[in-house]
């Protein structure tokens, strides 16, 4: 079977001024495949391009560990960009000094640090093959509104946890620095989980929201006590709704 090219949708404006983009955004919570942002070039009726050759000028994440690093870097770019906009929004600005404001600021710091760390690490090994600076569009998301910001932050963090958990096995530890990359993924994913827990509790304080049944899955019939581990194809299909820079993920490992 030919691998599909995942094409991140380029034109949010094509959607009428409804809540389409917002709704697709929220689909990330269930990690549903958002069909509108997943184009299978090889299967397209009016498209005769070679399915394994990305369109001219479109960046591909690459293969092997480099591909996984570029994938993680793309997700960290999304998170860092989101919190940068949060910090510029009136919800954050109007917060009094205190736990909630510090929490948002900390998460912004952490995600910027993750992004810049990947930029540095990938540039060191593959300066010509690093994911470019991506651009994002959040549709009509209201960065002045607490509920909207926190709900979106929670989705991003829960998705980040599932993405890193799903990527762990894709890292080839026999390749150069592979064991380092696996450990780094572990160092970051638990911080994402700490973020997710905190945002869930800000939304629903003192409840089971921080590790709720609705976000966890079962293993072996022992109960809803495990985070998801989601493959890149599903993560990118879901996240693609807000990434306006086109790229492909044609060569990522799948097992």
């Amino acid at each position, binding site marked *: 079977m030919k691998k599909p090219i995942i094409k991140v949708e380029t034109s949010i404006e094509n959607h009428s001024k409804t809540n389409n983009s917002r709704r697709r955004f929220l689909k990330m919570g269930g990690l549903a495949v958002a069909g509108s942002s997943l184009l299978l070039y090889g299967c397209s009726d009016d498209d005769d391009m070679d399915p394994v050759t990305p369109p001219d000028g479109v960046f591909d994440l690459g293969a092997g560990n480099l591909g996984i690093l570029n994938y993680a870097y793309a997700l960290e770019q999304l998170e860092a960009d989101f919190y940068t906009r949060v910090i510029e929004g009136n919800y954050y600005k109007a917060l009094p000094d205190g736990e909630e404001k510090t929490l948002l600021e900390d998460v912004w710091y952490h995600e910027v640090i993750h992004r810049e*760390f990947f930029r540095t690490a990938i540039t060191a090994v593959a300066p010509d093959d690093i994911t470019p600076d991506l651009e994002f569009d959040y549709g009509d998301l209201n960065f002045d509104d607490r509920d909207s910001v926190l709900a979106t932050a929670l989705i991003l963090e829960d998705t980040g946890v599932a993405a890193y*958990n799903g990527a762990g096995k894709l890292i080839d*530890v026999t390749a150069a620095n592979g064991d380092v990359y696996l450990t780094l993924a572990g160092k970051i994913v638990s911080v994402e989980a700490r973020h997710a827990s905190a945002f869930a509790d800000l939304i629903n304080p003192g409840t089971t929201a921080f590790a709720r049944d609705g976000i966890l899955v079962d293993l072996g019939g022992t109960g809803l006590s495990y985070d998801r581990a989601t493959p890149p194809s599903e993560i990118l299909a879901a996240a693609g709704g807000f990434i306006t820079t086109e790229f492909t993920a044609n060569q990522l490992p799948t097992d």
Partner: protein
Amino acid sequence: MNLLKILDNLSNEELLNTKSSRRGSISQFTSASKNIALASIPFALAATSSKSKAATATMSAAAFQATPTEVLNFALTLEYLERNFYQIAMDTTGLIPEADRAVFAQILKHETSHVNFFAAALGDAAIDEPTFDFTGKGLGLDTFENYGTFMALSQGFEDTGVRAFKGQAGALANDNDLLTFALQVHSVEARHASQVRRMRGQKGWVTGGTAASNGIPSVFDGIYEGEANTVQGGVELSGLFGDFGGPEAVKEAFDEPLTMAEVNAIATNFIVS
């Protein structure tokens, strides 16, 4: 340890019941977990092929890595510790305020699941349940009389659990399924840790590299030893983020692993046998 054995054990109801019958009265399963839902075994896993990532002889730490069975028993020990800790706390009248019981009931539910999962995965190779002393043996902690002590220990156990699983990722790297299972448990422990930390007035993320910097008595410095690391992937990050929280934010942004020996040195304070 391989996937077939895990699936076989997970689908062996008799074995699950045998394991549970060996446990003491204080650690009885909840009724929900007694009835393992065999129908929900992840059959999809059977279709995955574990790409061999062996050839670990060339990996620097390979000689010191535990076998998968040792790692799973290590995980089971920690999950037993946590499960018993929360079970006793929930059963101790007047310890956990009503407003906080939902949180700890949820954590107990998860730790119980994790015990069942690792015990089933190990089958006959599973260790017997240890006997625990949550006063910290010689430390004389008032763990179940003082909610503050209980909360501090809870944070310590959860943060240790995160570091313990992280430290074994390399030892499981040649088995895709085991590695993924461990990661799926690892991040749930981090969710717990963040919640308990925040209930204690701490940040949800680990701050600095001492017990004191995380609001825990210094006798437990081992829990946070090394968390002040700012070198990641060989890059010193401490001076690069002056506008983004500086070195403290760098420390928070990466959780650090502990070796099995380091974790055991912490856990041994609470394990009688």
